[in-house]
């Protein structure tokens, strides 16, 4: 701790968000009749307020080097807040119809957002762990939120048990790193590893454990087993949330941890990340083919996409990190959109989630079919849409860094992946129409429309986003 400064203002958005969360909780408890709509609206307001504070807030290190606010954390925190707000918005109708309409739902999402913001700002292994755990604990509860539904309870329990295992791995890794280096501070660790002689075997083992723990949180092979079950079992708005903001936060955390403290050990972790990335891409592409449940399909798609994002990290360069950040932005928006469409799949008040239920959607609800087509094409990476640019930047970084194998395997698995994305489009446009869906809630139409617009127009509006990602990547290497 070279500069012993508190600088508490660095955590202002987190503080405000946490206080808002507690205030909403108190309000919810104090009210005679539960009013989840009010709690949801206030939570969205709190997230927006935090977003304003994040963008306008002061930069720099704080809390004796435990937290940092830089361009990198700002970029990711904005994404996280948008993802959390989208999830609350999309949950309104679903929770009401599934009888899980309770004010704790948005409050838990707000607390998860606090945890995620700490994650992307953490510059100390302890604050890293606490942020991660705050996020995870809130999500375990959310996954089991439909407590009378057996699948939801199972999803929550499964996620909790496996998540605890991952936390154990992470903590073990952290303790090894601390034991062999004597510090948990990112800056000090980085300085300690600058001389190759100081890198002992125990340290590398510790780093691998840390990597494994974080890999669980971003759900990449071989720590992906929980993903399909949790995605399928959790209430769909929760799945929407799991698929968007926590992925961004965990990947951001992984980037900072690998680049800042362990940056000098690139040679040690690069092969590992390459391996994990390839395995995820292949499993994501092959595993999704046989799925009949669209939420399970999205889970395998998420595994594959996190594999693509890791290509950028495997490159280990500034361009690679920029690629990952753009990928996260694009992926978050399009998967939130796809889940908005999935949330609209509802017949006579009952949620349906089989791919076959989408049959002939183009004739019963052309607008919804068009939205889904846009998201599927984008997830597959078809050129004018945003998904293509996400892949383009990571592949570019991999090629520049000489990781040809990764780039080639990435392109090949995208082709395989395109099969199952386009199969959904085929089901919607060419199969015999099934019964029509219920009338959509306006929140779903708004969220779906906005994300689709972003996905389609990314080519035109990409400039500011890419320069922001550029700045963020520079902050990490600077």
């Amino acid at each position, binding site marked *: 701790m070279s500069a012993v400064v508190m600088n508490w203002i660095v*955590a202002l958005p987190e503080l405000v968000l*946490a206080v808002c969360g*507690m205030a909403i*909780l108190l309000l919810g408890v104090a009210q005679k009749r539960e009013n989840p709509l009010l709690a949801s609206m206030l939570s969205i307001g709190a997230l927006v307020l935090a977003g304003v504070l994040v963008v306008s807030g002061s930069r720099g290190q704080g*809390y*004796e080097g*435990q*937290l940092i606010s830089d361009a990198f954390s700002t970029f990711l925190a904005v994404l996280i807040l948008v993802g959390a707000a989208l999830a609350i918005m999309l949950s309104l109708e679903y929770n009401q119809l599934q009888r899980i309409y*309770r004010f*704790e739902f948005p*409050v*838990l999402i707000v*607390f998860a957002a*606090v*945890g995620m913001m*700490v994650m992307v700002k953490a510059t100390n292994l*302890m*604050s890293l762990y*606490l*942020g991660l*755990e*705050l996020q995870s*604990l*809130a999500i*375990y*509860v959310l996954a*089991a*939120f439909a*407590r009378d539904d057996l699948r939801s309870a199972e999803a*929550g329990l499964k996620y909790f048990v496996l998540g605890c295992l991952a936390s154990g791995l992470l903590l073990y890794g952290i303790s090894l790193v601390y034991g062999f280096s004597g510090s948990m501070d990112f800056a000090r660790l980085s300085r300690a590893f600058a001389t190759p002689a100081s890198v002992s075997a125990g340290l590398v083992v510790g780093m691998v454990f840390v990597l494994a723990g974080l890999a669980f949180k971003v759900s990449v092979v071989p720590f992906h087993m929980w993903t399909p079950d949790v995605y399928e079992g959790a209430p769909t708005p929760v799945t929407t949330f799991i698929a968007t903001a926590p992925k961004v936060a965990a990947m951001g955390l992984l980037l900072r941890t690998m680049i800042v403290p362990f940056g000098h050990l690139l040679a040690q972790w690069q092969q590992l990340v390459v391996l994990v990335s390839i395995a995820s891409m292949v499993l994501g592409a092959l595993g999704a083919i046989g799925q009949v449940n669209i939420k399970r399909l999205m889970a395998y798609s998420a595994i594959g996409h996190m594999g693509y994002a890791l290509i950028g990290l495997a490159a280990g360069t500034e361009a690679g990190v920029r690629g990952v950040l753009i990928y996260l932005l694009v992926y978050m928006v399009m998967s939130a959109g796809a889940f908005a469409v999935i949330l609209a799949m509802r017949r006579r008040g009952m949620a349906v989630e089989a791919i076959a239920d989408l049959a002939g959607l183009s004739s019963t609800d052309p607008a919804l079919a068009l939205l889904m087509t846009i998201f599927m094409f984008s997830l597959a990476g078809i050129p004018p849409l945003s998904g293509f640019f996400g892949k383009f930047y990571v592949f570019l970084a991999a090629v520049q860094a000489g990781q040809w194998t990764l780039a080639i395997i990435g392109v090949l698995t995208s082709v395989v992946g395109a099969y199952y994305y386009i199969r959904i489009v085929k089901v919607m446009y060419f199969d015999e129409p099934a019964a029509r869906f219920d009338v959509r809630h306006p929140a779903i139409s708004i969220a779906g429309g906005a994300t689709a617009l972003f996905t389609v127009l990314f080519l035109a509006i990409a400039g500011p986003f890419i320069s922001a990602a550029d700045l963020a990547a520079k902050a990490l290497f600077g």
Partner: protein
Amino acid sequence: MIAAAAFYVFSAIMLAAATMVVTARNPVHSVLFLILAFFNAAALFLLAGAEFLAMILVIVYVGAVAVLFLFVVMMLDINFVQFREGFQRYAPIGATVGAVLLIELTMVLTGWRFLPEAPQWRSAPIPANISNTAALAEQLYTHNILLFQLAGLLLLVAMIGAIVLTLRERRMPRRQIIRVQLEREVRDTLEILQVPIFAGTDEIGIRMRKAISEDRGEAAHEGAESPMLAASHAQSETEGH
């Protein structure tokens, strides 16, 4: 000198108490000896200058853990004699394993070499001019305030989670309604009968248990009164006899 004497006294009592914990036949005695051992350990900590640890030991271990033990031992009727069955049969195996462990430990400890500077590293330095309670507080609430608060938030989320996942509002909660209780009068609940000699319950027309239970069903709709009603009926019944 006095400190050394105190050390030996506390150590001796602690060792004796610890031995009694495992040898006492009555489990309640075991727990009480455990508490005695804790108190002596706390005194030893005090002698070593770790007043914070001493307090925590008394508050947490004696105040919470040991009392909890006592509750468990007293509430669960555990047959400790049964646990000791087969002691003689398994004693040789146990002794062998113990001996092997002892030999291994001796080998490890005798083969251990300390660095010359190790004694200085062995314990964290005690800050010069503040007590170690203050030093710990400074670590927790000044240097690591962020982590401390985050941990608090984490516990809050755990609490919300536990409540959300388990709390169920009952359809017909039997809440206490004070107004209803206060407005009751004797004749609402009690029926005083003049009972002729040798008259059975049938002759004097006292409602039997069956009727009472039907009553109870009705009372449940009215609110909180059902247990009291039943009790008062039972009372009138006994008076009838």
